[in-house]
């Protein structure tokens, strides 16, 4: 327990009448990369803000490196990096000045890394921030969080404005960061393919609750699509345990199942005398099915 990077217990947050986060409990261990998925307005940003203490919970607790998020001491803060959804850059300054201002707050700042990334990512350090394009601003926001080599990196839609090349460069850098297995990364994104590459755990936030909180691999094994064929009467009578959707036509049915186990394929075939073909789904398909 003391090793947990982030720990939340019965966390809730309401804005007035609206319950945005409803009784969430979770744990983040070092080395994990967590992809946070959810529809717009599902509360992803709120959850990330609760985790880092930017907003107080209505009930429940959340802590970072063992300290309550609302009262993080300085040394803990210097191990945390955050990239907000809306950049908070100082328009009047040059890129170099902005970097120097943030750098001055941290005792351990990897200037070499930042310099190299500025070159590789095509960020012009002499440019004024107000003249940068949206993509360049986003790259700079990301760089500002990387510099102190944080042990906990939280990113809120960090690549929404980046082109595919820039996104791939960012992913490669995240892979480098998480390669030593000691750092935790939590990032929310709409770009499911990025999460699919990088995350090993998935959190799906739906109606204020974590609809799924587990390995990506298990998620792909758990939620599958079945194609059922057989005689019309047989198909009409088929009952699929754990189905979250089921569509029937004459002699043919499609079902999306949650909690799938390979043994079920044999039992379905035996009980109902139908053929069952199992189709694995990609993360985007899974997300869509869960939100139908």
């Amino acid at each position, binding site marked *: 327990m003391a090793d947990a990077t982030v720990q939340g217990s019965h966390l809730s947050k309401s804005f007035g009448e609206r319950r945005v986060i409803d009784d969430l409990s979770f744990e983040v261990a070092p080395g994990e990369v967590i992809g946070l998925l959810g529809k*717009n*307005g*599902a*509360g*992803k*940003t*709120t959850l990330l*803000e609760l985790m*880092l*203490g*930017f907003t*107080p919970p209505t009930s429940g607790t959340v802590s970072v490196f063992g300290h309550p998020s609302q009262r993080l001491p*300085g*040394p803990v*803060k*210097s191990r*945390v990096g*955050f990239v*907000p*959804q*809306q950049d*908070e850059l*100082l*328009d*009047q*300054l040059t890129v170099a*000045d902005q970097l*120097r*201002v*943030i*750098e*001055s*707050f*941290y005792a351990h700042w990897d200037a070499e890394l930042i310099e190299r990334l500025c070159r590789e990512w095509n960020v012009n350090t002499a440019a*004024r921030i107000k003249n940068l394009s949206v993509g360049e601003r986003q790259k700079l926001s990301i760089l500002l969080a990387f510099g102190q080599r944080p042990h906990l990196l939280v990113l809120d839609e960090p690549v929404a404005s980046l082109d595919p090349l820039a996104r791939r460069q960012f992913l490669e850098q995240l892979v480098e960061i998480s390669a030593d297995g000691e750092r935790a990364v939590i990032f929310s994104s709409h770009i499911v393919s990025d999460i699919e590459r990088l995350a090993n755990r998935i959190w799906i936030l739906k109606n204020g609750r974590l609809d799924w909180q587990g390995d990506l691999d298990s998620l792909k094994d758990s939620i599958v699509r079945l194609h059922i064929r057989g005689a019309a009467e047989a198909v009409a009578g088929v009952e699929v345990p754990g189905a979250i959707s089921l569509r029937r036509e004459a002699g043919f049915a499609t079902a999306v199942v949650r909690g799938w186990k390979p043994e079920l394929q044999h039992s379905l075939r035996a009980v109902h005398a139908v053929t069952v073909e199992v189709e694995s789904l990609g993360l985007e398909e899974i997300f869509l099915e869960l939100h139908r």
Partner: protein
Amino acid sequence: MSAVARLVYTYFTSTRLACVLSGGGILLFAVSLIVVFGMPQPEDMVLFASAGQLAFFLGSSNMPLLAGRLSQGHAARLLPQGRLKLFLSMMVTVALVALPTLLLMPFAVIAGTIKVGVAVDIARLATDPKLRSFVIDMALMIYASLCILAGWLYLAMWFVTSQRNSAGFSKALVIIVILMLAPTQEVNDPSSDAWTSLLQLAIAWIVFGAIFLAWPRLKNWRTRSWIPGLFPRARAVRSAGREIDLMLGTHNPWMYIGALLVPVFLATRIGQFSPAVWLYMLTIFSAVNGAISGQAAERSRALWLRAGWSRSELFARVEASFARHNSFVLGVLLVLMVGIGSYEGHPVGMLAAGLPLLILGTATSTYLGLMLTRGVRWSEALLAIVLMLTLMALPLMLDTRVPNMAAVVALEVILAIVAIVLRFVARSRWAAIDWTECRRPRDARLAPG
């Protein structure tokens, strides 16, 4: 503490202009101090040194915006000791910015600009402890007052730069006018000494610091308040129903009117002002009233996209919206002018000249603001300064026993012509407006998802 040093350095060097002002100001100040002993007219030295001090202050004018942005965003919470270091950086900046004047004091005394009843030179200063402590006391007192003044000016600048709408201007205005009135109070109270001033300064910083550092907790307490309705969320602004007014910021002239009534009321309570000072104050109000038109260009882009108007039609409607807003404020100002004037028995000539002056103040600043369709360039900034000086000069001209009415009338006619010319320029610029050249409004913040 390198963060504090880096922040302060950044405040003074944020843009190229800031670098020029800060560096140039210091240089000018230093040079005039060094040269003082070789100057034939020591008073000139004080003039140059003051110009240097002013430039140095202006060089740091981005400080409220930068510090404010850092403290409003996630940075203040996430950077280690973020809030504390931001606060210290602000304090150090204020202390630094007023420092040249502190250093100036002894030199000014030696140069004779500040009369202390006896001739003073360095030798005398070194050997006479009473004289020394007197000069030091005076210097500290002025330094403390200057720090407080700088703090308030930064606050006014914060309102103007962060909320670029009439609400921001109004708040800044209230502060500036209170500052104008406050010194008159101090003059009436000669018993203050250095320690009182420093104490005032210390208290001001402690109060500000406490609120600034505890702000997140205060904000949470407010939203968590268990007495429902104790701190209700701001009620939705009651709009007059016209979208164009909302977008330009002209939907609520009463807010601005309320803001200017406060200092006017304070002024009537405090004491006697000469008619010229009243006119001066009301002229400034009328000029600032028109200043929100400076953002009309960038804000009108959305209007143009949504409605089917041509650019000329758009200009006509924008002009009408400002005319409606300004007429309310002008009406109040004119009533005030006449009311106070007749109550206090101001000369009729001053009233007669003052009424058109107020109208001209609003008209010229409104059209100057509408002209800014390509951001603010040097020529336009210069024009604004000249206009402001002219508007301020007129009350001064009227202040003599027998004012030169011919000159005043001539100047007002010139101002009227200038207003017409500015309108013509604004209209033609709007007919060919290119919104990519306006500054982007950065007011919009997305709701949390």
